[in-house]
Structures are given as structure tokens and as C-alpha cells.
């Protein structure tokens, strides 16, 4: 998929939905398809015009940010290039500062706390399997199932025996989240 320079307004207008996607290029493609499928609701994606903008991250490793704008189905409006660039820049800046990444980390930590039945404040990155009584074999399975549902990805046995700490789970989620609304 070629990357095109596009634009979108900062505030979504009626009929518009903004998706922020981050990850490597392949993951962005996957995320884009996901976003389109969510928007299209079964309709063909060609019914919508969209333009997207990608800004390479800095520092290295912070990932890309893409802003996708869905055009209203009843009209096709070409957004102004300047608006989209500003919006995408702002989105990237949030990624660089880790704000969005932090939001997702909090989601994962809350998932761990809820599944294990422990206070959220007890969930720190170094928390690992069997360090608390609640994180036993049975709850580890429950946690993996919850993670599969949240991230919409399959977890095989190699992963199940590796995702034994909060840090490992957060890192995994950061790489495999398919999209955030």
C-alpha cells in the first residue's frame, strides 16, 4: 500500500471517525483494514474516500502514527492538506511522548488486575506469575483468554509460557494491538 499525504481536521465532524494507528508498517496496514471494516460495517470499502498520512517516528522505535479520516458517505470532500498534516503531527507527538502508549498500558494493567482479582495499584511491571497467590495456573489461563479477546489475536503455547509478567504482557500488547477507538 502506498503512503499518501493526506489531511484531516483536528475535531471530527459529523459522519467522520478518526482512527489513530501505530506500530510498524505492516501493523498499520492491518490496523487500517480493521478501521475500514469497522467503518464499512460490511459495505465495500470503496464506498468511502479516505486519505492517510504517515509520519516516521522519532526517536527510533516509537512507531508510526497514522490519522485516517472517513469521508461522509453522501459527499466526498477533499480535506485540506495543511489540516491533515497538523493533525497527524499532533498525533505523532502524542506517540512520541508515549501518551497514547501509556493509555494502552493502563488498559492492560487494568485487565490484569480485573482478571486476577487484585487491586490495580498492585499491578506493576515486575509483577509475575506465582508472585501473588491470585496469579496461579488457572488465572494465568483466564488472563491469556482475556488478552486474546482484548487484542483480537491468538495466543499459542509458546506465548502463553512467555507472557508470565506484566511487563511481557504490556510489551506484547503494544506490538499486537489491532486498533484503538
Amino acid at each position, binding site marked *: 500500500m502506498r503512503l499518501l499525504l493526506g489531511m484531516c481536521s483536528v475535531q471530527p465532524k459529523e459522519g467522520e471517525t478518526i482512527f489513530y494507528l501505530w506500530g510498524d508498517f505492516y501493523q498499520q496496514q492491518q490496523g487500517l483494514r480493521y478501521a475500514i471494516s469497522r467503518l464499512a460495517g460490511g459495505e465495500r470499502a470503496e464506498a468511502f474516500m479516505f486519505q492517510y498520512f504517515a509520519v516516521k517516528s522519532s526517536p527510533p522505535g516509537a512507531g508510526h502514527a497514522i490519522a485516517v479520516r472517513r469521508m461522509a458517505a453522501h459527499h466526498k470532500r477533499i480535506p485540506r492538506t495543511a489540516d491533515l498534516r497538523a493533525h497527524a503531527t499532533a498525533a505523532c507527538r502524542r506517540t512520541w511522548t508515549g501518551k497514547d502508549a501509556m493509555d494502552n498500558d493502563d488498559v492492560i494493567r487494568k485487565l490484569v488486575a480485573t482478571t486476577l482479582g487484585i487491586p490495580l495499584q498492585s499491578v506493576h511491571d515486575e509483577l509475575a506469575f506465582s508472585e501473588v497467590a491470585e496469579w496461579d*495456573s*488457572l488465572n494465568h489461563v483466564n488472563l491469556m483468554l482475556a488478552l486474546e479477546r482484548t487484542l483480537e489475536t491468538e*495466543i499459542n503455547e509458546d506465548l*502463553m*509460557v512467555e507472557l508470565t509478567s506484566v511487563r511481557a504482557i504490556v510489551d506484547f500488547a503494544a506490538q499486537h494491538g489491532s486498533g484503538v477507538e
Partner: protein
Amino acid sequence: MRLSIEPIGLQHKESLKQLFASRLSAEMVEWKYFDRTARNTAVPGFVWLRQGRVRGAVGLIPFQLSTPTGPVRAAWTCDWIVDSSHANPGVGVMLMQHAKEAAGPLFTLGGTEVSQRLLRRMAAMCFPDASIELHVPLRAGGSSWFRSVERRLGNVLKPFRSVPLRVATGQKRAVIEPGVSDALGQVLRSDSAEGMAPSYDFAYIKWQVGQCPAVESISCYVRSSKVRSGILAWRSKVDPREWRLALWAGDDSAGETREVIEAVLEYVFLRGAQRLSVAASRLDSRRLALFRAHGFLESGRRRSLYLTTSEPVTAEELRRLSFLDTDLAYRF
């Protein structure tokens, strides 16, 4: 979640022996998981494979459960193990999940502290202290008191272990035969429990005890036109001091039942036994009273019973339990 969990098959034999090496000999693994004569085509268990090797397993011993509404296919679980369970979290749970979906209601009796902690949360029903052990001390070494003192004093009391606590009383009318006698097959059919209970057929007990490489067995019954009471007794080949028994008694067989119990006590006593033990359901008040009347004392060892099933079930506690349940027969 995708795991490499498969039913136990011939292709797993060598790898399974390696996994069980610290707890079961190769011969025992062969008998327990690959001798299908008594178990037909029932799945003997499930294994978890990693990098081509068996790294976890759960064994299944199928049996028929007698219920008020008819017989139900069920299974005992055994040998629930994961290689380095700390490094492979969740695999044991997934093994049990597979077993539950394949084998109908699963019953577990006792288990390690870790497994029971998991089972208390996984099981549909839990019956604490469901199985009671009783024993008759035949020699000093078989007495619970003597053993507790010996644990504190070490081998000082060793010479006194053989001191008899009963005297031989002479020939009994009951017949004693080596192995699992066909005569027991008659009394199996006539001995039924009310409510829910395992219903073991002759093939089951022949496999469990008669063909088990770790034990030697005898059968005891009163010879008559219809055998109404019988005992299967066995001991470990490694340690001949400990004997166990399972009793079957039909209706109106009080006299024969007394005779076979006394005959077995006499027989094992004369062969150097220190203790004869029996297991029973705590709900089986008739049996418990019978054994207590013959001098059996409660050992203090109780096992909880867990029922795990994927179907909605209304189950009650099993009214008949014995050393033939799960793999207790050879676990002295």
C-alpha cells in the same frame, strides 16, 4: 488458545516414560497407559507436546458410574503433571480442560496441595473428606501409635515391628485363590450401592489389580452355589507388610461377609503382614460399621472428591469408594 495437546497414543510412549520416570517405572507406564485390554478404546489420557516431547500429561481411568437414572460413562483422573509447572503456567489447566471435554464427568480423589487448590476452583462440585481409610494393625509395626513413636525415635523400635497383635485361629471355610478369581465376577453383579457409586466390572478389577505389575493379589470367597461375598486383597511387591482389600457383599450375606473378612485377616497375618487397610466412602455407614466391628480403626487419612465436567450436572457424593478408585490400588 492453541496448544499442542493430544490424546495419549503409541507415538508418545517413550516420551511419556521419560516424563514419568521419577514416579512410575517403564513397566508401570506400559500397563497404565498402553494396556488397553480392559479399557477398550477409551482415551487413556492427554499429553502436551513441546518441541516434539511430552512435557505434560493427565491420565484417565474410565469407569462406569451407577446413578439413580442409569449408568453414566465417567473417568478418574490421575498423573496430572506438567514438566516444570512453574515454567509452563496454564498448561496443566488446559490439559484438564481437554480431558473434561473428551471423557465426560471427571472424578479426582485427593491429589497434591497444588492440584487440589486448582481443583477447588475448577471443579463443578467438591466433597471434602469423602474417602476414609481404615486399617487393622496385625503387628506392632502396623499400629498408628507405634509408627508415630518410631518416627520420633528412629530405628530403635525396629526389632519390635513384628510383634504380633493377634493370634492365628485356624482354618476357615472361605477359599483363598491367587490373583483375581472369576468367582468375584459373580458377587460384583450382586453388590450394588444406592445413589451414585462407581460400578466396577470384572474387567476393571482384573486390570486394576490382577494385571498391575506393582502388586500381588489374592481372592477370597465362600464356595457355594452362588457366591454372595468376596474380597480382593493385594500387597505391594516391594513391601509385603502392607495389604489392602476391596469387599463385595450381596444382600443377606452377613455370615459369608464375616467369614471372608476373617479369612483374609488370618491369611495375611500368617504371611507377615503388619497392617490390612480398606478405603470407604464416609457415607457408607453400613460398611464402616462392618469394618469397625472387625477391629478396623480409622487411619486419619481422608481424601476429598472433585467432580469436573463440561456439562451441567446435578451430582451427589459417591456412596461407595475403595482402593480401586483412580490409581490408589498400587499407591501404598
